[in-house]
């Protein structure tokens, strides 16, 4: 459905951030994109959704195809119209608009206006808490409720592909589980394809069909969640699991080397 081939992104004409990024998102699946801070995950999503321009960024090489057509030269509004919706990092709800108005803003590109009311109800069944706070300014919602609103806003656009940028950011563990559950349900019930960017690798691998790990502007490892979970580096760096009985000191060096190997 979506494929990136050797994409290169440069900010401000000089800062090279994506250095030959390639990935595939098949129709109907949940694909996770994992990586440390600054790896270029958000940049990847913005390159897809056409949101680089306001930040002075540009796709300078490679191409991005959606349903067989190149989209990396399209403005953001056309990308949304083709069915890709990015839920930005940090939730970015419209603080001075109430919950319902935020959702209506999400439906902006819809041409079937008469169905918008019905879809509001659909969003409220996924997130009953939003219904209770329908008329409240979004700025006063809790962090978790804002994340629900940000996802609800995406649903209102009826997209084929939703890209979620760190939906677990700053939320309590229980709430994260709840939100991931709903993401999974949306994928199954609405048939929405999902590209999930996460720092919380453990949970992301739980719901994903396939995962990519990126470092320093490119993919360094990819595979089925089960395979990745078995990989010692992934266990160490992304899942925070260390093998029983071994102490840190010597291993640190070893892992540092292994990490170097990825980066080079």
């Amino acid at each position, binding site marked *: 459905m979506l494929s990136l081939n050797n994409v290169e992104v440069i900010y401000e004409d000089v800062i090279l951030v994506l250095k030959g990024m390639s990935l595939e998102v098949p129709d109907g699946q949940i694909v996770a994109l994992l990586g440390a801070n600054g790896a270029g995950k958000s940049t990847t999503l913005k390159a897809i*959704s056409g*949101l680089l321009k*306001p930040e002075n960024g540009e796709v300078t090489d490679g191409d991005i195809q959606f349903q067989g057509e190149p989209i990396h030269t399209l403005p*953001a*509004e056309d*990308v*949304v*119209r083709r069915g890709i*919706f*990015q839920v*930005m990092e940090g939730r*970015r*709800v*419209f*603080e*001075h*608009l109430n919950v319902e*108005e*935020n959702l*209506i*803003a*999400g*439906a*902006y*590109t819809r041409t079937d*206006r008469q169905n918008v009311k019905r879809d509001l109800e659909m969003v409220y069944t996924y997130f009953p808490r939003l219904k209770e706070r329908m008329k409240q*300014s979004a*700025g*006063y919602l*809790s962090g978790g409720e804002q994340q629900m609103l940000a996802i609800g*806003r995406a649903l209102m*656009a009826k997209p084929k592909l939703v890209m979620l940028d760190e939906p677990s950011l700053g939320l309590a563990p229980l709430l994260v589980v709840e939100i991931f559950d709903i993401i999974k349900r949306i994928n199954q019930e609405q048939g929405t394809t999902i590209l999930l960017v996460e720092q919380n690798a453990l949970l992301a691998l739980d719901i994903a069909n396939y995962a990519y790990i990126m470092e320093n502007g490119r993919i360094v490892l990819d595979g089925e969640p089960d395979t990745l979970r078995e990989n010692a580096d992934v266990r160490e760096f992304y899942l925070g699991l260390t093998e029983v009985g071994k102490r840190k000191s010597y291993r640190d060096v070893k892992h540092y080397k292994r990490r170097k190997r990825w980066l080079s």
Partner: protein
Amino acid sequence: MDQFLQLTLSGLTNGAVLALAALGFVLIYKASDVINFAQGEFLLVGAYVMFAVVGELGWHWTVGIVVTVLVAVALGMLLERFVLRPMIGEPIISLIMVTIGLSSLLKAVVSGIWGTDERAFPSFIPSDPINVFGATVTTDKLWAIAIAAVFLVAFNLFFRRSSSGIAMRAVADDQQAALSMGISVKKVFAMAWSISAATAAIGGIIIANILGVSGNISGVGLQVFPVVILGGLDSIPGAVLGGVIIGLLQAYTGGYVGHGLNSIIPFIVLVLILMVKPYGLFGQEIIERV
């Protein structure tokens, strides 16, 4: 009592015009952070286009209002497209200079076409004296207030209910997030300028109907600043309330005190407000959750 009612009514009439002009100003500021010093000239253009259509061509006043609004909408769009949009990303001071330049340009164009003499406005609104609570007032003022109220209510509904209105407020809140839902920020800017020009033009028609058509109308635009500072630069209800308060204050000081106090009272209010409540009565608070 009689005098009080009459003053209140003319205060409200003026206030309604100020509110319409201020509404447009706030709209542009909210959507695009541009401080539009040419807002007063939108009033002027509105008044003269109405004068041309009804007074010179002799068409019916309803046609006059429609044509005036259309011309204003087109003017707003053209200005946004060819003057403001190329300026995106320039420092705020350049934007201010551009709108000041626009203000002189519009004034010059209007006096170039119609000259500088004061003209009688084709009074299309009946101005019969009637009796309201024991005071004698002319119906044109009541009409003016009613027309302004209709437009203000219509705009309020537009912002709360319509998808375009909500999109405009979304852009005011977070441009990039608005972009991410496919809202065209360019379209929203163009809309802000055209609605702004249109509301001001309606205000211009109302004021011309009372004062006659002349270059002085753009002077009313100057009072937009005290109004929006009072109401809060980014608040639509603030623009309306600010307009009414300033309008009333002017009428009362003019009637009871005199000595020209009515023409400086808006600026006294301006200074006082800047000292005690710099964001105005309704200036948007920055929402901070704890």
